[in-house]
């Protein structure tokens, strides 16, 4: 195995002549300005993940506050106004500022390494998307700090979020946040899809792509189709609010259900593009710790693609209580049941891999197993809420709160924790503490179930969602107290994770290039990877390149420039080398453009004039960004980039 690793490293490794040359070309200059200018996908990915983690903790604190408020009946800790802002901010932050950017950040970091290239396809766009995400998220939180937190729910139904009932600027900031995060999501999705389709290592044909790469590809394409509808919808609401249009005003021929269609056409696929990457993590981690290739690779890939398609045909199951035609609703019940099948197939393939493997029961695998159970429960209750009659009883009750948390925690959060433990040594070069990890896992698993399982029963007992308190006579007190205690346990486990991550980052045991003995390309380079990722771009001749390759097949690409940021574009299906590609160099303009875009959209909240004149600064920033530079052109000509 180690010989394969060496072979993939161009034989020479760190003492080869090209390493220092590449280092000079790719390493960011020292200093704060250079730090702001970076276009290194690893830096951008780390920033996405770190920022998303901070938003996660902020949203977690909000969840904790809500659990505190609901722990006992008639609690007066929080009033309805603040509570409504809290649950709206909790949902909005978790969905828009944590789950999607976190998964995309993981992709930005991992995908170029997994497919064996030096950077993402559009590094400046990736940088710009991060800054829009950061500034946009901060805008929402600054508004919240000034008592202007969105308060109409993360789904922002009109008319409650419309001009007449959505008071102040609260809903405006929410609409703008949708613009910010969806722009970010779309830019990253385009970037990731392009890397995956056009920049894979030679030989990595589609049927040799790692499963997380497949998951990222499916997710990215879903994002490209789903996100525009919610952006469109949010801007229609914003026009109703600021420009006096009547898209959603029934008194003027508008329709309140139009928003629900636009929102859920995005909102339901969103659930899947949060947890398909999670399933991708699982499909990477299980083979590594079962010491065998994934069972049913084709079935898993097809399942992910099928999930991606089917997820666009479910959105009406969020609207069963409206007066849409009953027969039409049955179609969405059938679709909701059908989408259980591809997920079930993936679960069966995981069990088959574990069944026939030899297990290295380390913390990433524990989180995968725990997540499996939690996702299974969430999936089964998902079948229940997919049924029209049953949904009419449990819709908008705590049963659904339980269901969605089981799905997202089991399908995304457990796999994400597993992924943190799994790739932490790759990113930082140090291992996390296994003993603390096991304790953290146990607490997390117990805490999640203690928090959310009682909510099923609360829903059946008639407790609606989004109520800030309840009367003693309802009898909901005991189960709510149990849920709150569970939330404490989750908090404790998260605290352990943070302490362990910080401690391991500073003083953890050094990890080699491949501490878990894994099979994908990111493990063939050093930990942490150098700025240029690989000394020589690898050539792949099997599905598990670190584990096996065809004898006699080439191991790496040679002949690429080291004096410029050169990479290789390969063909979509078979990854046959196609053209040489020069990656753009660091620049400050993505940051400036992002800041101007934020200013423009925030300005448009306060003045319609701002919506018009605010476009000028971003336009200037974009022109500066794309302005050709003489030295770059000359350098391109010198290395025969084009004749």
């Amino acid at each position: 195995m180690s010989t394969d690793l060496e072979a993939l490293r161009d034989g020479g490794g760190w003492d080869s002549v090209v390493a220092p040359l590449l280092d000079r070309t790719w390493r960011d200059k020292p200093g704060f300005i250079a730090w702001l200018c970076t276009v290194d996908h690893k830096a951008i990915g780390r920033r996405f993940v770190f920022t998303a983690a901070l938003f996660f903790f902020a949203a977690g604190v909000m969840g904790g506050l809500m659990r505190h408020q609901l722990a006992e009946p008639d609690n007066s800790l929080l009033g309805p106004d603040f509570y409504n802002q809290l649950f709206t901010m909790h949902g909005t932050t978790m969905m828009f500022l944590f789950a999607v950017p976190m998964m995309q950040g993981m992709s930005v970091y991992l995908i170029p390494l997994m497919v064996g290239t030096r950077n993402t396809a559009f590094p400046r766009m990736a940088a710009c998307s991060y800054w829009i995400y950061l500034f946009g998220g901060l805008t929402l939180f600054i508004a919240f700090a000034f008592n202007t937190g969105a308060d109409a729910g993360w789904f922002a139904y009109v008319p409650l979020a419309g001009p007449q009932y959505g008071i102040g600027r609260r809903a405006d900031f929410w609409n703008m946040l949708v613009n910010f995060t969806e722009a970010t999501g779309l830019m990253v999705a385009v970037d990731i899809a392009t890397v995956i389709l056009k920049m894979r290592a030679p030989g990595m044909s589609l049927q040799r792509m790692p499963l997380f790469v497949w998951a990222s590809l499916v997710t990215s394409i879903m994002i490209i189709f789903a996100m525009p509808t919610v952006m469109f919808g949010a801007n229609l609401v914003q026009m109703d609010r600021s420009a006096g249009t009547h898209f959603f005003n029934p008194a003027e021929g508008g329709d309140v259900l139009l928003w629900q269609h636009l929102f859920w056409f995005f909102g339901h696929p969103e659930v899947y593009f949060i947890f398909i990457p999670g399933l991708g993590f699982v499909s990477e981690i299980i083979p590594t710790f079962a010491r065998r290739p994934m069972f049913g690779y084709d079935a898993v890939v097809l399942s992910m693609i099928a999930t991606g398609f089917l997820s666009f045909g479910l959105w009406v199951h969020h609207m069963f209580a409206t007066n849409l035609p009953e027969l039409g609703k049955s179609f969405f019940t059938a679709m909701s049941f059908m989408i259980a099948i591809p997920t079930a197939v993936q679960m069966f393939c995981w069990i088959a891999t574990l069944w026939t493997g030899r297990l290295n029961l380390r913390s990433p695998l524990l989180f995968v197993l725990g997540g499996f159970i939690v996702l299974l429960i969430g999936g089964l209750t998902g079948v229940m809420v997919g049924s029209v009659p049953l949904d009419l009883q449990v819709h908008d009750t705590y049963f659904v709160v339980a269901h969605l948390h089981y799905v997202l925690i089991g399908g995304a959060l457990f796999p994400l924790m597993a992924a943190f433990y799994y790739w932490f040594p790759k990113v930082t070069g140090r291992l996390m503490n296994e003993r603390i990890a096991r304790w953290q896992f146990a607490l997390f698993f117990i805490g999640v179930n203690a928090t959310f399982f009682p909510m099923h029963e609360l829903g059946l007992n008639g407790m609606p969602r989004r109520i800030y308190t309840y009367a003693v006579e309802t009898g909901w007190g005991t189960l709510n107290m149990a849920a709150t205690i569970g939330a404490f346990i989750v908090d404790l486990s998260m605290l352990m994770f943070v302490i362990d991550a910080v401690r391991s980052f500073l003083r953890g045991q050094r990890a080699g290039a491949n501490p878990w003995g894994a099979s994908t390309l990111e493990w063939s380079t050093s930990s942490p990877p150098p700025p240029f990722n690989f000394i020589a771009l690898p050539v792949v001749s099997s599905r598990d390149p670190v584990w096996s390759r065809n004898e006699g097949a080439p191991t790496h690409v040679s002949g690429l420039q080291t004096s410029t940021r050169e990479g290789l574009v390969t063909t979509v299906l078979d990854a046959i080398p196609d053209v040489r590609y020069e990656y753009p160099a660091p620049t400050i303009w993505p940051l400036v453009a992002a800041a101007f875009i934020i200013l423009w959209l925030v300005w448009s909240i306060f003045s319609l004039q701002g919506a018009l004149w605010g476009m000028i600064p971003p336009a200037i920033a974009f022109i500066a960004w794309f302005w050709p530079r003489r030295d770059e052109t000359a350098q391109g000509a010198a290395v025969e980039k084009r004749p």
Partner: protein
Amino acid sequence: MSEVLAPGGPQAAHIAQLWWLMLAICAFVFIAVTLALGCAVLRARRATSETAPESPSTSGEKRVGLWVKAAAALSMLLLVILLGASVMTDRALARLPLDDALVVHVTANQWWWDVVYEDAQPDREFRTANELYLPTGRPVIVKLDARDVIHSFWIPSLTGKKDLLPGRTTTIQFRADKAGEYRAPCAEFCGLQHAFMTLDVVALAPASFDAWADAHRAPAATPSDPMELRGRELFVSGSCMLCHAILGTSANARSGPDLTHVASRAHLASVLPNTPVALAAWITDPQVAKPGANMPAHFLADADMRALLAYLGTLR
């Protein structure tokens, strides 16, 4: 305890039946899959990160593949069964006989319910608020409208939900077979007081219901006591009549709940018990019990408050 699973009528009973079937099948799947996972983890040999990876034998993969295919096929079969059960339940819900149905028009407001009992004879129509009385054994058609934002009508023990959508009139049909009191919380987030937008549902034997309805058709009686008369005078000359109506007086505004028979209701504003003390507190400052409520505060002199309470107490 479980309101959804303690049906008081056929609609909720159909859904409860579907629930038990779903629960049984899902519990079976959960146990089977968890067992398979547990066995897989327990039986597999142990390894370390250094263990050389191995490609499993083709025959072994085929055998396992058969299990995976069988499990997938079984999942599909179970899902088809559940789909059938779901559609059949839907059908049963749609086939509720509606002969001689009582028609009630419910309009949701932030944060109270306006309830009108319709009748072919217009003079037999009457109105109440935040309470829905029903005769047992007789189907009810509830027409649903919303005046401001989206709300949702839901009586867990009697029927599933139906949203009240501004600009779209929806209907829901059900029947209460068991007499008793049921709770109907608003089930769609509707703003500050979503938590206390509850409709008190009371199902009565037909004879008692008719008596109740007759009593509610009558306008408010003119009080005889001077203090009560003074209370009425305060009501119709003060700001109360700007929003509320009392049949039989000149107060006929509709932006707040109708108060013609307010003293007969179990709760005030869905949140307080209907006692004179609570009513006085409510009138003085509604924001204490129901922060965000649209009713303004009224600071009345003691004597005025007593007179007003005395009058309102006569509105049975």
